[in-house]
């Protein structure tokens, strides 16, 4: 296996398309994911992925492009989710649980009806089919990804504030409701746009894995965000290359490489912390003097 052979794969147009789509998703998904991890909503991408199945099935049923029906369904679901979270006593994880069950059931049920028409193939949306995407789909991913990444980068300080301490953000007069909604809708767009590339079930992984991988070494939010976007790019690129070599689906390869990267950095970070324990960046907290007399040892 030599380098020439690897580059040889990219003479094929479908490989170029696969690589571009994966790189864009790898770069843009973590820019949203970093806020979801901050808000402790890491699983929401997965929840919206399940809901998206219903959207895909509606696309099958109505004969429209699944991308648009998915986009409509996930955006609607994220709005309902945010209203539930902010206006009722239903907690975020109960709403998530409902999305998981309802989304999958809806997708399978509607696909069952649509299968009479002989168009139903949920598989390629579940696990991604980078290799069969056309140029128009690549452009959708590039434009959607660019809009998402630019929004996240420009609004970073505001989104950080609402994700880190929502009550404080409210008291500083920030439009908390609108920003929360924006974050969820952006997540929905990311999920819908990247489903053809990495697959619905694996989108959540690209939202979260790069973030939790790099945050073991970063100290600031800004550095975490940029490093996560870099890591996502690297993981997605390596994943496409590796899948071409082994001739396996790119989606699962990308996620496995991501998980491996996370495990490796977690181990490395633990080792580094052990080494550095004696050399801290700043003084340890000053404790109060002990106010008791310790018993003398017998």
């Amino acid at each position, binding site marked *: 296996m030599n380098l020439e052979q690897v580059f040889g794969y990219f003479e094929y147009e479908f490989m170029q398309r696969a690589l571009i789509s994966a790189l864009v998703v790898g770069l843009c998904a973590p820019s949203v994911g*970093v806020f979801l*991890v*901050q*808000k*402790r909503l890491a699983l929401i991408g997965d929840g919206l992925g399940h809901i998206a199945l219903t959207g895909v099935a509606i696309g099958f049923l109505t004969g429209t492009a699944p991308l648009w029906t998915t986009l409509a369904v996930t955006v609607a679901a994220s709005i309902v989710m945010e209203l539930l979270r902010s206006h009722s006593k239903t907690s975020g994880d109960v709403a998530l649980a409902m999305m998981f069950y309802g989304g999958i059931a809806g997708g399978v049920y509607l696909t069952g009806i649509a299968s009479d028409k002989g168009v139903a193939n949920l598989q390629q949306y579940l696990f991604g089919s980078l290799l069969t995407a056309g140029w128009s789909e690549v452009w959708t991913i590039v434009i959607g990804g660019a809009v998402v990444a630019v929004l996240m980068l*420009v*609004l970073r*300080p*505001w989104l*950080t*504030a609402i*994700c*880190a*301490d929502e*009550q*404080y*953000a*409210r*008291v*500083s*007069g*920030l*439009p908390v409701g609108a920003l929360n909604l924006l974050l969820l809708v952006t997540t929905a767009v990311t999920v819908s746009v990247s489903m053809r590339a990495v697959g619905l079930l694996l989108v959540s992984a690209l939202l979260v894995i790069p*973030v939790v991988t790099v*945050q073991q070494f*970063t*100290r*600031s*939010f*800004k550095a*975490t965000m940029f490093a996560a976007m870099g890591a996502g790019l690297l993981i997605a690129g390596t994943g496409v290359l590796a899948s071409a070599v082994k001739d396996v689906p790119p989606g699962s390869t990308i996620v496995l490489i991501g998980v491996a990267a996370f495990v490796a950095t977690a181990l490395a970070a633990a080792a580094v912390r052990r080494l550095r324990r004696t050399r*801290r*960046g*700043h003084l*340890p*907290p*000053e*404790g*109060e003097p002990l106010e*008791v*007399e*310790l*018993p*003398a040892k017998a």
Partner: protein
Amino acid sequence: MPVLNVHGATVSYGGRAVVRGVDLAVAPGEAVALMGANGSGKSTLIKAVAGLVPLAGGTIELFGTAQKRFRDWKRVGYVPQRTGAASGVPSTAAEVVSQGRLAHRLLGMPSRRADRDAVARSLDEVGLADHAHCSVDTLSGGQQQRVLIARALATDPELLIMDEPTVGVDAETQAALAAVVADRIDAGCAVLLVTHELGPLTDRLDRAVVLADGRVVHDGEPPRPVGEHADPGHQHSHPHSNGQTAEDFWGGK
């Protein structure tokens, strides 16, 4: 015109009134403590003032404007009850404090020199200038609390609302924070402070409002420690329930 005027405020949780018809006014530059035992409704009242819980009855005015129509939140600095400044993703102390400047910035606009200066100045005020670029989750509990106070100071508030800012903070930090807050009071900032203990922070107060069972039972001079508690060198001795004295417990002297 008072910076804060609460009239007949009632707040209920699930049908049970926790704050019942409270009147409270804070004049510009005045330092007021809101005191009371656990469950007296003091934290709930301050959350209602900050707009975090809805009123069931009564009115709240901030700087002469009804709270519902009040938009100038950058004049209010808020220190929430201690939850720690750390969260899911690492953030530096400077990043947390810069949240206090967001009310001064237009959505989507980059920070200006004045914003960065205010962040550096408030970190310096609470004595964390050297820790600006440390991740907050590596700071001690007391240092994290100082970060949250710096965040409220960075707004350059005219009314500083603090919900139990010194719980779990060591004596030395409490004294340092009291000095910081006293400086702001001298500069004309009004303070509304929730506390259930007397300490360095309460020495500088003009007035105390004591709540019991959701009602105001005292509004005037801050309470002073009485009896042997008034002696700065007094010793606490808490006999243990099994009849042992503290000395027995620690093996005698």
